[in-house]
């Protein structure tokens, strides 16, 4: 059984078919990229997979459970337990420090645990920035806090909607690197991106066009290898600052 399966999904806004009969399967541990022109329905699809929206028609099976008809309360619970979200605009709470932002996800999930939150920040290389407010962090650092927040509750899938859209190249590499790490640890990743370089490191790239799945590219060269070793990546980041 696939971890995620979309069966003939439609999302219709009046006349507009934002998603038009989309079907796909994502296996556990897979890393999938989603590309497509603006307005092609990428975010719409991510919202449906992320339990933040419901399809107009069709079934969404997550872990074998059809989530397309769940109440919004249950969707919140499913999202909390199974999904980690990363956004283009980071969306950190600006009066909470980095570690508190990570703990917020723990708070709504179960109980905040500062030690664990600090470990998560350490994994994204931000142990020394834990007590900084978002305004005191660079864009790249903020996005890494978001990654730490997304992975803190051990989600089954991490959904990232243009995670590198607001980042420069150096920070983009750091984030992609983190994805490699998560992938190696067995996390399922679905990443929406405009950037072919970000897309092509995934195992599979799906291309959406006008709400339909237009193309599927399988990365035959996919090795799962990390481009740079960890030390390199973070050294780069430091130079960049």
């Amino acid at each position, binding site marked *: 059984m696939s971890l995620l399966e979309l069966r003939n999904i439609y999302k219709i806004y009046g006349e507009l078919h934002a998603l038009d009969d989309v079907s796909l399967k994502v296996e556990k541990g897979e890393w999938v990229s989603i590309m497509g022109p603006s307005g092609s329905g990428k975010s719409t699809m991510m919202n449906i997979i992320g339990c933040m929206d419901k399809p107009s028609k069709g079934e969404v099976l997550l872990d074998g459970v059809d989530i397309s008809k769940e109440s919004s309360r249950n969707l*919140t619970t499913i999202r909390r337990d199974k999904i980690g979200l990363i956004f283009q605009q980071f969306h950190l709470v600006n009066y909470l420090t980095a570690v508190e932002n990570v703990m917020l996800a723990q708070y709504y999930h179960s109980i905040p645990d500062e030690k664990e939150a600090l470990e998560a920040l350490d994994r994204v290389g931000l142990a020394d920035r834990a007590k900084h407010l978002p305004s005191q962090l660079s864009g790249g650092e903020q996005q890494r806090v978001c990654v730490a927040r997304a992975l803190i509750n051990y989600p089954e899938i991490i959904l990232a909607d243009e995670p590198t859209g607001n980042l420069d190249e150096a920070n983009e590499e750091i984030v992609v690197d983190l994805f490699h790490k998560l992938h190696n640890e067995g996390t399922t990743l679905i990443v929406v991106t405009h950037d072919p370089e970000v897309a092509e490191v995934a195992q599979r790239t799906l291309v959406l066009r006008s709400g339909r799945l237009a193309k599927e590219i399988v990365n035959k060269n996919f090795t799962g290898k990390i481009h740079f070793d960890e030390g390199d990546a973070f050294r780069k980041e430091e130079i960049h600052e």
Partner: protein
Amino acid sequence: MFGRMIRGTLLRQWKKMLMIAFTIALGASLASAMLSVMLDVEDKVNQELKTYGANITVVPKSASVLNDIYEVEGGETTGAYLREDELGKIKTIFWAFNIVDYAPFVNVKGTLEDGTDVSVVGSWFNHHMELPTGEELDAGIASLRSWWEIESGEWLDEQSNENAQIAMIGTSLAQKLGVSVGDTLHIKGSASDGDFHITGIFDAGGDEDDQIFVPLNTAQALANLDGCIDSIEVSALTTPENELAIKVAQDPSSVTVSQYELWYCTAYASSICYQIQEVITDSVASPVRQVADSEGAILEKTKLLMILITILSLIGAALGICNLVTASVMERSSEIGLMKAIGAQNGAISGLVLTEIFITAIFGGVIGFFAGFGFAQIIGQTVFNSAITLKPMVIPIVSILVVLVTLAGSIPAIRMLLRLRPAEVLHGGR
């Protein structure tokens, strides 16, 4: 974490929160001022109205009958009198506590040296009484006729001038006779005569301006009427009359025993009259209708006005809060969307927002309460000329009102918050 978040929002949105606190303070201050005054006003209004004179008169039965037959107001002495030694009993009736003041009157005829006939009234001025209950009371026309303007001299003080031959004289009569304070008038009564030292000239704005007022016992001595009085005027705090009171007053036998008891144990003017008749032999006590009625009406209208002001101010506060809280939630919509996205249920977020608002509301409410109490003092001093005592009842009532207003004001914002969908606020890059 929860506390950290609350602190974060309160600090970050302190301007908005201050405005919310201020709005609540405003509403709470008006509500607590009005409530303090309202709960205290019954006494205050009554005290105020008391100064416009007595609301019950007591006359001998025979005089009452004659008055009714011939319809003569304040008719001449008819030969039947009330007994002075029973006066104290008025303060022993069931509603004794509501009797705030009273004074006996005796009218005698006097003749001056030049042959002018004058009307001499004996009464209490500031008669000191020690009641069986241990209570002490200064009763008399000094307070019962508080509207008298003293043109010259001062109020007759019967406490420090016991048995002295002193008098107060009405302004018209004083002009007619050409006398002033310090002069002495020789008054000849039917039984005896005496020299009366004038201590004050008053302007009553009525018939009394042609009369001479002297202490009760000296007037009685002039006509050899020791222990006799013509009438008693009583000022009592009364409950506005209702249907029951009117029914009982017309025909006591028309009501059930329990209705009768209810009437007896309510401070209606008619039940107080009834009780006075019970203690004063051969007397008829009757409410001075107009005063008793207007007292009730004014009180009701004042209360209504205050309730109206309170309600309007609270509605205003709720609307103000509604705007501010909605704005605050809107400003935070992406933050709230994020919380939902990372798993916060609606209840958790509503709880957070409500806690913030309630902390602010408590802050504003406490300030408003004290401001309102101060405001009540100002109203008390300017309108009723006395301090407003803090009724403990005001605190829970105002607290409940603040909670209700805050809740009502938060409803639209909470509804908005519940409807807010994370997908719509988070993907601004769409």
